[in-house]
């Protein structure tokens, strides 16, 4: 197997006296979808925020393409090629798809005072990128507010891909979606994976994870309960791991360590 793009070794994160992560190891390779499962409060959010540079780990190391890396801000990790699609998607409903797609990274033409937003080029790229993802826009000026939840997710994903993400972190992209839209998003994940991008898919839905995942890591109470490859684990086992971990952690609950 190829070298991991991002490798996180024994990551710990403490918030005051609360231990949110107690030594989590995780990696993601190119062209794979690594699912991070866990119930509410398992530390999934803290973990991806550490990965995307929002939090600095208290202990542990992050390797990016083999080199030790310390992200000071989300911008740092974005520039390195780690894109995060959060649940709120960072989209503005009143603005057109094109304007959202290029928000903060507008293509320009002309020089000096005549330097301007190249709307034609931007519209062309947006329509093209969205078509690649299987969405036919009414027009590039269509407002994002008129898109469905799944389509918005797809816009956010294709935006990250277009701007050169090597690793794509998806924070519960299917949690608020209907059946049809969920399968649309899962299909998008598959398509992005085939382009050679490493995907970290955060979910608490075992079926969604098994539908596209190559490897599965279960997180519980700030610890990993092991990583399994596709085919090595059944949905029941995965479910048990999430729930069983809960019971174990409850036994250890008096030691603290909850988020």
């Amino acid at each position, binding site marked *: 197997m190829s070298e991991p793009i991002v490798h996180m070794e024994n990551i710990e994160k403490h918030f005051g006296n609360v231990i949110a992560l107690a030594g989590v190891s995780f990696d993601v390779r190119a062209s794979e979808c690594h699912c991070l499962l866990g119930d509410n409060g398992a530390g999934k959010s803290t973990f991806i925020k550490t990965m995307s540079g929002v939090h600095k780990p208290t202990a542990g190391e992050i390797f990016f393409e083999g080199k030790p890396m310390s992200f000071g801000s989300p911008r740092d990790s974005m520039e390195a090629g780690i894109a995060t699609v959060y649940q709120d998607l*960072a989209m503005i409903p009143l603005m057109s798809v094109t*304007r959202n797609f290029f*928000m903060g990274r507008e293509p*320009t033409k002309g020089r000096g005072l005549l330097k301007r937003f190249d709307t034609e080029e931007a519209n062309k790229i947006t329509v093209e990128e969205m078509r690649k993802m299987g969405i*036919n826009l009414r027009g590039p000026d269509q407002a994002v507010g008129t898109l469905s939840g799944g389509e918005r997710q797809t816009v956010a994903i294709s935006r990250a891909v277009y701007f050169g993400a090597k690793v794509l972190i998806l924070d519960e992209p299917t949690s608020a979606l209907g059946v049809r839209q969920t399968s649309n998003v899962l299909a998008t994940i598959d*398509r992005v994976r085939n382009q050679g991008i490493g995907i970290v898919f955060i979910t608490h839905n075992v079926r969604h994870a098994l539908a596209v995942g190559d490897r599965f890591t279960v997180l519980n109470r700030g610890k990993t309960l092991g990583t399994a490859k596709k085919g090595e684990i059944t949905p029941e086992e995965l479910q048990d791991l999430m729930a069983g971990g809960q019971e174990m952690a409850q036994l250890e609950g008096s030691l603290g360590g909850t988020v």
Partner: protein
Amino acid sequence: MATEATAVTDERIKDETFFARMMKKPELGAIAGVILVTVFFLFTADSAMFTLAGFMNFMSPAAQLGILAIGAALLMIGGEFDLSVGSMVAFFGLFFGACVVTFGVPLIIAIPATFVFAGIVGAINGQIVLRTGLPSFIVTLAFLFIFRGLSLVGLKWATGGSTQLRGVRDAVEGDFLAPFFSGDAFPGFFTMLANMDLIDKFKNGTPKVQGIPVEILWFVLVALLATYVLLKTPVGNWIFASGGDANAASNSGVPVRNVKLGLFMLTAFCATLVAIITVLDSGSTDARRGFQKEFEAIIAAVIGGCLLTGGYGSAIGAFFGSIIFGMVLIGLTYTQIDQDWYLVFLGGMLLIAVLFNNMIRKRVTGER
């Protein structure tokens, strides 16, 4: 599932009619309003209103309001308010008047100095809003009173007790910059037109309209520039994004704070431009200048399609919104109607515009 990318069109989407497309333009309401008001006055007003002289008559106040309204519109799209613009007109007028009259500074220094001063004031406004996270509404409401009070106090101090400072016209007599900010532009062209009998003239041959009042030119220039920036530059996209959702914009790499700060300064610059024009035009500065203009500017921006919640609107809409104001303000003098209906109209227009914008917003975002 639709895993393969295809170019088929979605059968559930009807072709948009021309009407539906037009409904999505933020400036539609203002343009419809201009047509409505024009039709109204065509029936009720003296025909003199729609001569060239009449046109200049209502465009002059429209222009003075409009320059403020366009600044206000951009700031509103960026998600903030500035209620102090009206008081700023008086305050910067005082600063400018004092430079010219009291200190005898030539315009080439006085004008940039006023703009720099305005930039600082606008930046203070913006910094307080951004640093405290308080609503700009309340912060600038405070400055509405502060600037008005400072103008009164400052004028009394500069003149020894009066709230008017006269003598600006004498002070700038012959200054080469004065024609850019006062009087009429292109007098030669209009004399030529009069000589060719293309426009009305007096018995002695001088044209009734001696040129285009410069504020109208500034108004058009500001409107064009603002529209260009808003629609055709990255900064324009940042303005929409900052007002639409500051957090999302910030996460996507938009420098939200700088955008908003810049917009606060821009509204201050617009107030400066209006202040300089009115001071030079009337030859005096007055602490009552720009009274309640902040409300009119915001109303014009709202008529022009700006949402009070930010993130949506247009500069060209504010342009037409201001023209509506000018037409009604001056138009009523051409009719038998009592002038004070103007205020009723003001409130009525605002109410209709807000209802209309609300509807438009739902259409744009597809809310049901």
